[in-house]
């Protein structure tokens, strides 16, 4: 038995013994995902048991180094762990912005002290993070952000406002873009800093969307103290880190374009019925659905192709630049079709009879996909300029 096979056998046995049965059921919704933090929202006590057991082995973040609370696994081992978890339908024990966003940025840009201080609490789910990027006057033009950080020797004093801060009202710490210098171009003078959301002077206000309540907040900073040891990278060079993280975020959002289990066409056939030839009764709707499903198929083939090219060492091809734009536009098309296919029940907003308005709320929420994390228009600018080489 080689090492990898032995690792598989041990992993399988450990998972069998340690993964609670309730954690082998699919999550029922966003509120059923365990995100940790000082004041964790616990939908089921097994969530904490499962997270704790996995964290002890470093398997909440299998590929992070062991000294930072990770599992220290290589690519192949991490794949085995993923396969073995999938085999018994084990949930991911912990899902957070700390794991998906700040962690990779700190591993890449942070100093040793910062990694040792901040990564282990992310790995064990002790500290929950939020992201302070957008401002009321810095949306697509993020680099024009104005939240000020004044140099006070060993710390900064921060004043300003962030918006679209997901879970700001529930997070313990924030990774935040602030302006430390106004004299140069707008991309210079931006710094990437970390501070405690419990600091005096931080207030948050949830934002209600067209789809109803949301995790988004407005976040206000009134003379908030942030220590310089928590400045990541050099002062004034935060834009590089910001861009690195935006790429991560766009990859996550483009995943929304993946095709659902039951196809729109099959749902439509159940609701609207077939004509004598077995085709969906409404030919015009049928064509629109077919166009959507064709594009969804070609899009998922493209995700696979780019993944396979990267695995084969051919680098991340130009095709990856289309993911955010195309994936979110596809998701909007799918949601429009869900409304068209669903009819009256899809219009429901509240009440059990309408499944809490799931269809209409998802439809409305999807409109934000092509805005958040870089609008469709910004993405098209990027393709035109950086991939096609068209001039300014």
């Amino acid at each position: 038995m080689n090492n990898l096979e032995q690792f598989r056998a041990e992993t399988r046995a450990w998972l069998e013994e340690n993964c609670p049965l309730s954690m082998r059921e699919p999550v029922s919704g966003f509120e059923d995902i365990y995100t940790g933090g000082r004041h964790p929202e616990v939908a089921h006590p097994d969530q904490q048991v499962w997270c704790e057991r996995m964290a002890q082995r470093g398997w909440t973040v299998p590929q992070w180094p062991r000294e930072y609370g990770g599992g220290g696994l290589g690519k192949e081992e991490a794949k085995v762990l993923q396969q073995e978890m999938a085999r018994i339908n084990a949930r991911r024990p912990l899902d957070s912005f700390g794991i998906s966003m700040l962690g990779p940025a700190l591993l890449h840009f942070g100093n040793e002290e910062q990694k040792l201080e901040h990564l282990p609490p992310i790995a064990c789910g002790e500290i929950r993070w939020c992201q302070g990027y957008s401002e009321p006057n810095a949306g697509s033009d993020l680099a024009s952000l104005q939240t000020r950080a004044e140099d006070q020797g060993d710390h900064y004093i921060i004043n300003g406002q962030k918006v679209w801060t997901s879970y700001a009202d529930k997070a313990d710490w924030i990774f935040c873009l602030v302006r430390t210098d106004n004299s140069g171009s707008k991309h210079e003078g931006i710094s990437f800093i970390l501070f405690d959301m419990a600091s005096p002077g931080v207030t948050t206000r949830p934002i209600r969307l067209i789809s109803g309540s949301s995790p988004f907040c407005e976040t206000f900073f009134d003379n908030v103290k942030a220590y310089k040891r928590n400045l990541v990278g050099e002062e004034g060079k935060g834009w590089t880190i910001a861009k690195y993280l935006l790429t991560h975020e766009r990859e996550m959002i483009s995943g929304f374009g993946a095709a659902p289990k039951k196809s729109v066409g099959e749902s439509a056939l159940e609701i609207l019925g077939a004509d004598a030839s077995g085709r969906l009764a409404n030919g015009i709707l049928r064509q629109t659905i077919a166009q959507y499903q064709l594009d969804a198929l070609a899009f998922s083939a493209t995700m696979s192709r780019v993944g396979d090219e990267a695995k084969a060492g051919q680098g991340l091809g130009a095709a990856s630049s289309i993911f955010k734009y195309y994936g979110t536009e596809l998701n909007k098309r799918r949601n429009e079709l869900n409304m068209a296919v669903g009819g009256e029940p899809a219009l429901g907003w509240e009440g059990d009879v309408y499944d809490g308005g799931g269809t209409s709320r998802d439809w409305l929420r999807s409109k934000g996909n092509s805005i958040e994390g870089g609008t469709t228009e910004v993405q098209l600018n990027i393709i035109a300029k950086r991939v096609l080489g068209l001039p300014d």
Partner: protein
Amino acid sequence: MALILTEEEVMLRDSAAGLLAEKAGVPQLRALRDAGDELGFSREVWREIAELGWPGIPVPEAYGGLGYGYTGLGLVLEQAGRQLSPTPLQSAVLVGATAINELGTEAQKQALLPAVAAGEILVSLALQEGPHHAPEHTALVATAAADGFTLNGSKCLVLDGLAADHFVVIARTAGAAGETEGLTALLVPAGVPGLTVERRSLVDSRGVAALRFINVAVGADAVMGEAGAAWPGLSRTLDIANVGLASELLGLATRAFELTVAYLKERKQFGKVIGSFQGLQHRAAELFAELELARSIVLQALQAIDANDPDLPKLASAAKAKLCEVAQRATNEGIQMHGGIGMTDEYDIGLYIKRARVVQHCFGDYNYHLDRFARLSGF
């Protein structure tokens, strides 16, 4: 299977690009067109291509081919699409060799495939009869005679029909129009009494013929496989043909897009290159995204042929429909973004929209294949 090309495939693609650009590209197409060439391709260039073994790419080794599969052939066809190469690769290799391999008897394969693989003989499929691709509505009749069949009827859109040595003729031996049962594939040599082959001049200036059968007698040994049971083999042949044509359209659309982007960087109006205008930039970026999707679905469909994937019919229609859509958009945007000069015969972009339109139509267009994709997707 990973959606990437092997080193060997990359080498084949690059050597195809080189040869076709030099010997069978747009200048050669123009020359053939302007000379009113009947065949629509150069036999001499075809011999050079044959020497490289390309006609044998999809033919199994047991029958003298390279047994290299359709992913490899797809790469060559993509290059042919880029250069608008006038060759019988589509008619005789993609469709002709495939039809014999999928429909023929062992004796027919042994008799014909080695010569097809060597590029020595050309075999073309005679299928379409009306204005649209509708194989189950085949009406050309093959009536049982003393020692074989008598054929009556007509065919159109026979690719390189004037140059073909043999035809694979799809005929009805039983059943009614609209039924898939009762269709028979027959191997008919060119020059048989009662068969007339007439050139048809289409918009792409390639060699296409219409056939007329008046009491054409063929022997029982002309039947490919079993009489009345051609549908499964024909269906697979058409799936393969459509994926191959999708590869050609991929190359064609990509090249049309490259020509257009190059023009956007060069043409000045209002004191700036027009490629700096966001109205054009976004349309170009959207087209780039569509071309990336097109490339992925074509590669997936090509690999599905070689892997005997049961999903091939759905993937073939997906690839053909997507490429019809994208090639149409790329060539239309190409002309629009070139402006007035795009309407002139002197500029190449017009040749691209002409060839695209013919390839889009062959063996089922966008509307045909989007409908089939929906049916095969269960709605």
